[in-house]
């Protein structure tokens, strides 16, 4: 519609700039990072090889030991040490940016891309820890669900079975003290083990008998957004990237693995003076005509299951096939 009024408006005088940037960037999607905060963190020194050894002295035998008054000493016992080794590996990612991007298209790219690389670093680290759990831990099929698949959907009996395994193996729960509560940034519900599940399981978790959803926790202070619920002695944390294997259940549905563990079950080892390095290479270094600059992130990580006795888990399917 046009008006012959002699008024200058946007109909006959369009804005000079067709678009403008809003004051803030939109959020970059990031999945929940759940696979590292329940594990022990160790540090490797430089110049002493890429294998980190974590050692544990096994407890002494409690059999015998009574003195009979004869003055003969009881046999001494040689302590046994178990060594858990892990190989340090390095991962890296870079972004090379042409100067024309900064000149004509986008400002503050260094800041933005540094944030992107930082996010990549944490996401990659999370997936590497996930792979450790999915590859090197024994899991038991759920059988108490009613979906008729093998494994079945998750049930209280299945969760209790894993709790029995961990308690029977003297595993320590995560949240037995105020210090632990603060350490993992989780609110106080009760002392608990940790369970890591795929977000596709949320609907099934809601239906497990006795489930306490996060909204029903006695306190909401300090609860991580990744936490979903509490069942028996386990607090469930969920991520869209948690482990699953498509198409291998009895009926050809996706099987999800849920690692469930207590203290000191697994470890992440960082390399001193190397972990979480984010760097910048200026244009005169990257490009012969000084047009491309480079941002990079790299980190070193080793990972290990440090006590198979204190970690177990479930293979499950979903009630509605997925």
């Amino acid at each position, binding site marked *: 519609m046009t008006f012959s009024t002699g008024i200058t408006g946007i109909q006959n005088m369009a804005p000079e700039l067709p678009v403008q940037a809003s004051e803030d960037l939109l959020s970059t999607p990031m999945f929940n990072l759940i696979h590292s905060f329940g594990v022990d963190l160790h540090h490797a020194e430089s110049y002493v090889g890429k294998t980190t050894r974590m050692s544990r002295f096994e407890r002494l035998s409690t059999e015998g030991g009574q003195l009979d008054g004869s003055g003969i000493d009881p046999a001494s016992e040689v302590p046994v040490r178990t060594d858990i080794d*892990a190989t340090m590996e390095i991962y890296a990612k870079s972004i090379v*940016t042409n100067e024309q*991007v900064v000149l004509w298209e986008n400002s503050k790219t260094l800041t933005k891309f540094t944030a992107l690389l930082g996010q990549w670093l944490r996401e990659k680290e999370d997936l590497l820890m996930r792979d450790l759990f999915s590859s090197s831990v024994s899991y038991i099929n759920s059988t108490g669900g009613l979906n008729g698949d*093998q494994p079945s959907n998750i049930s209280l009996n299945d969760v209790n079975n894993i709790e029995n395994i961990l308690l029977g193996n003297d595993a320590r729960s995560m949240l037995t003290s105020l210090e632990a509560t603060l350490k993992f940034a989780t609110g106080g519900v009760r002392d608990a083990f940790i369970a890591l599940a795929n977000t596709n399981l949320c609907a099934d978790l809601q239906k497990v008998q006795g489930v306490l959803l996060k909204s029903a926790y006695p306190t909401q202070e300090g609860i991580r957004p990744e936490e979903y619920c509490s069942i028996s002695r386990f607090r469930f944390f969920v991520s869209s990237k948690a482990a699953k294997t498509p*198409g291998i259940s009895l009926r050809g549905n996706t099987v999800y693995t849920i690692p469930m563990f207590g203290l000191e079950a697994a470890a992440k080892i960082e390399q001193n003076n190397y972990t979480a390095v984010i760097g910048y290479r200026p244009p005169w270094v990257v490009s012969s005509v000084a047009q491309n600059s480079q941002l990079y992130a790299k980190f070193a990580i080793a990972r290990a299951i440090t006590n198979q006795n204190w970690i177990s888990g479930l293979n499950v399917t979903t009630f509605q096939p997925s």
Partner: protein
Amino acid sequence: MAFTIVTQGTFTQPATAVNQIIPLPSGADYFVTTNLTQMATTQGTGRVVRGEWFGGGLTAVNDGLRWKKTNSTSAINIDNFSTATASNGFTYVTTQPQPEAAVTGTAITNANPAVVTMTNTYSEGDVVQLYGTTGMLQISGMAFTISSVSGSGFTLTGLDASGFANAATAVVARRISKLMPVEPRFLYVTGISKATQGVVTVSEKHQYVVGQKVEFTIPGSFGMVQLNNYYLPQNIPPVITAVTDYTFTINVNTTNFTTFAFPTSASSPTAQLFATVASAGQSTQFNPITGVQTGYNFQYVPFHSGNFIPYMYLPAGAQSPGGSASDIIVWQAYKMETGTINAPVPS
């Protein structure tokens, strides 16, 4: 934009050619193989002498350009790997491989070892995950290394199914990666002998080594529950004392333990599955007289990545980029000198 060679290498196929994996730390935008051996020959059936792969999605999975000598001459004919039967091309792998497409079979014998009837294109030593094993549900979901592979079936060397009540009348298989994302992996246990030193059989060719400590998970449905989370006196996990491809011996006297046996197929949907074993560290022994340290293997024992990713997968075969028996293959991986974010780049 110029390309630069980032890596180059060569390999010689053994007497029985095997599929090759070429780690590519920097990735690749262009990959080429040259079969030096077949360059110098003229075969009755023409051979592939050169293969080319293009990044950026230009080459489909298991494909690429093949330069093939025509039959009985050295004249070159160029086409795609995918255009020929019995021909496999390049596969550029950037993430841990997921289970492949399902292949349906008709039977698994209740014999020792169990034999699967299935029309397939699998290779010796592949690992498959089996499910839908009607009549033999107690193994549904387990992974197996396959052997004696033919187009009509394969053998599960790691499974003695002679104690099973029935043969399976259906089975579905998905091929999975031979290597897990992290090694050493957990393994499925298919048998444990009753002996002064128990012998454990697993469903896959394993890489466990002498001296390695292991932790068992044996549900009650498998009988030998005494070995479930078993610790020797002093809280020591069982230690491996000998190994074969599918078995290892542990320093645990299992003579008086309950017999290990799979649950029945009928009970399997509700029976707890599976019996498994996982790595629990090691203890080295040092002989001060000989100065020899035993019980440790740096190649296998430390937790480490199973696959180096990304990598290029080169299938073996006279019509494939990996070449056939005794062929010498040169490979080169090219990468753009610099990728920039404001220009389309093949990556």
